């Protein structure tokens, strides 16, 4: 394990500047209601505009509508979008992971069918992993796909499916052959399912604040054609593990409270509060600077062809805990009875952070699971 310090090249700094100018024009600072990180609003028009600039699916090959850019370039775009609180919800999943999975494991036909549309910002994807009886123990999934003559019949239930009610496609981890004793990782496959398929039912699981992100998706004899299987039948676990590496350690794991913190500084300007928060801001910028450097070095490592799964698990575990720590420090220090319907944008955002951030250390793999992944990888270190 080694995190090597790196810095942005002049060309990368230019990209950062372009993104900042784009955001200032589209969403002038101080004038828009920022989103809190990756749980951002879906705004297809915004996604289309980003795609016009080549900033959706940007690391995918040009051949498939991408821009052949690096993981660091994508890091820069994502970082600026998230710290600005931009509504990146529509293309988020496709951009972060599904595009990569289809490129890496999909058939030529699937690449042709999905990648250009992903890069145009058109398609929204949901991910089907958890089930009522399978959470952290993901390999125990029991939603079944059974062979028919020209495809598969799917039966079962997926839960915590973000955005299924608004998205187009569903990447599901399904059991394509019965669980064997001693090898529960075998017999799983990744299959693309049209969310409009007959027999597929979507019902909301309201979030604790009443908002609608999560869904329960039930499959009742849903037919899926053969051509929708991603990669090899039975290789779903391996593909899924690879996919998880893309979703770990990026800016989405440590930037969620940033727009809240920035808004606090905006509202505190010229008041007594400015003095109160000063030392805390010192601590926050230092730790953000440090975690960002780690996260950036992971992106740089990916560009050298490595798969830094231990490093990215460490960053994700630390980053998501840090997000919660930031909120706790704000709540502790500032004597306000903040509420979701306050006139103050800062107070509204803080209330939203308090209520929704417990989920940050759960989504995409709980920190307990991450620790178990990372600590196994630490074992090989010298002492």
């Amino acid at each position, binding site marked *: 394990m080694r995190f090597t310090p790196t810095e942005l090249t002049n060309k990368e700094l230019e990209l950062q500047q372009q993104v900042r100018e784009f955001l200032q024009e589209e969403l002038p600072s101080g004038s828009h209601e920022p989103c809190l990180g990756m749980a951002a609003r879906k705004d297809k028009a915004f996604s289309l505009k980003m795609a016009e600039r080549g900033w959706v699916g940007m690391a995918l090959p040009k051949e498939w509508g991408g821009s052949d850019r690096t993981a660091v370039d994508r890091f820069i775009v994502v970082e600026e979008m998230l710290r600005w609180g931009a509504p990146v919800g529509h293309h988020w999943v496709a951009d972060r992971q599904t595009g990569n999975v289809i490129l890496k494991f999909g058939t030529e036909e699937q690449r042709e069918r999905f990648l250009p549309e992903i890069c145009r910002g058109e398609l929204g994807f949901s991910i089907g992993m958890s089930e009522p009886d399978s959470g952290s123990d993901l390999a125990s999934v029991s939603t079944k796909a059974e062979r028919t003559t020209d495809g598969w019949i799917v039966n079962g239930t997926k839960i915590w499916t973000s955005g299924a009610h608004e998205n187009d496609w569903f990447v599901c981890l399904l059991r394509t052959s019965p669980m064997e004793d001693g090898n529960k990782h075998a017999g799983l496959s990744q299959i693309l399912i049209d969310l409009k398929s007959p027999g597929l039912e979507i019902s909301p699981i309201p979030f604790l604040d009443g908002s609608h992100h999560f869904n329960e998706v039930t499959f009742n004899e849903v037919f899926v054609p053969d051509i929708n299987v991603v990669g090899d039948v039975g290789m779903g676990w391996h593909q899924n593990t690879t996919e998880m590496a893309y979703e770990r350690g990026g800016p989405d794991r440590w930037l969620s409270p940033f727009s809240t913190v920035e808004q606090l500084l905006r509202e505190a300007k010229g008041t007594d509060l400015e003095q109160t928060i000063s030392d805390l801001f010192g601590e926050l910028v230092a730790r953000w600077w440090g975690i960002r450097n780690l996260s950036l070095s992971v992106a740089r490592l990916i560009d050298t062809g490595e798969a830094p799964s231990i490093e990215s698990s460490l960053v994700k575990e630390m980053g998501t805990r840090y997000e919660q720590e930031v909120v706790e420090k704000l709540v502790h220090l500032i004597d306000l009875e903040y509420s979701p319907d306050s006139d103050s944008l800062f107070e509204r955002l803080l209330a939203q952070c308090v209520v929704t951030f417990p989920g940050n250390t759960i989504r995409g793999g709980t920190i307990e699971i991450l620790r178990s992944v990372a600590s196994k990888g630490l*074992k090989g270190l010298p002492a």
Partner: protein
Amino acid sequence: MTELAEVDPLVTETADRLFTQVCDHEAVQTAEAVGTAPEIWSAFAETGFPWISIDETCGGSGGTLLDALEVLRLVGYHAAPIPAAETGILGGWLLADAGHEIPEGPVTVLPNGATDVKGSLSGQEVTLTGTCIRVPWARMAERIAVLLEIDGQNMVASVDPNDCVIHTMTNMAGEPRDTVCFDNVKAPASSASEANPETFRFRGALSRSALMAGAIEKMSQLTVTYTNDRVQFGRPVARFQAVQQHLVWGAQEAALARMAAETAAREANRGLASFEIAAAKLITNQAAARATKACHQAHGAMGMTQEYPLHHYSRRLWAWRKEYGGDAEWSRWLGKAAVAQGAEGLYPLITGGSSVLS
């Protein structure tokens, strides 16, 4: 902006090999009991490492500040009981900055500046009176480099410790932190060029973050090894989720501290690095607190003994956390810089660091 320099791999390799040979657990333990470690110092001095980054024309070894800080990281990693920072990038730098001769032996400095020492100048000679506490390794120093302001001018005096009264004291790690009494001590003094209380403070903080990053990394590695070897309930304790938490927290803080210290070192090597140094010292301070807690917990009672080496690192970290600025001092400095940027400038400060402040 000029490209960032890289550490000379030969420096890392040679220093690591040297300390592995001469700074084992027993040697460090003995140094604490005796109060100094002359043989470790001699082995270190023979390589020329103490004077890296000090110009050869001034009697130094040449090389970059980055390499000097890499050596300090390894001093921390091996808990080497020697005045490496004091002789090199602090004291050596002060002496060279004012055109003094670099002595052959160790040098030390007054970490809290000369606030407790009064000086009066007569020609090229200064007369010093006062008492300074927590002076590292004063008992074995050949020179004390004293930075002081006289009539609005920053001066560096090169003091012979034999002219002072030295009371031997230690910090929490048993490292020499002596009290030095100056009673009308006369010493040659000349004007400083870059050195002033502020640049000295930042250099001190930079030296400590490098030392601390090394010590935290070593502590984390000891913890991984120990918990994989130690068997309870029929399996290595590292297999328990509750213990894995401590392993991961230790490794994260080690990674964060090293990243912060190395980034600050690279920036300081290139030029202005006030933001990076301040952030690195604050990060390593806090990482020291978190990592010592996690690593001690994972070691159980064994970590609380003198016979097991964890304490060489944890006690140094607790002491170094307070040297050249604790959490409060650097939070305050960074907070002022952050608030002055305003809301729009806050993220550009995190990504741009000192280049935004200049």
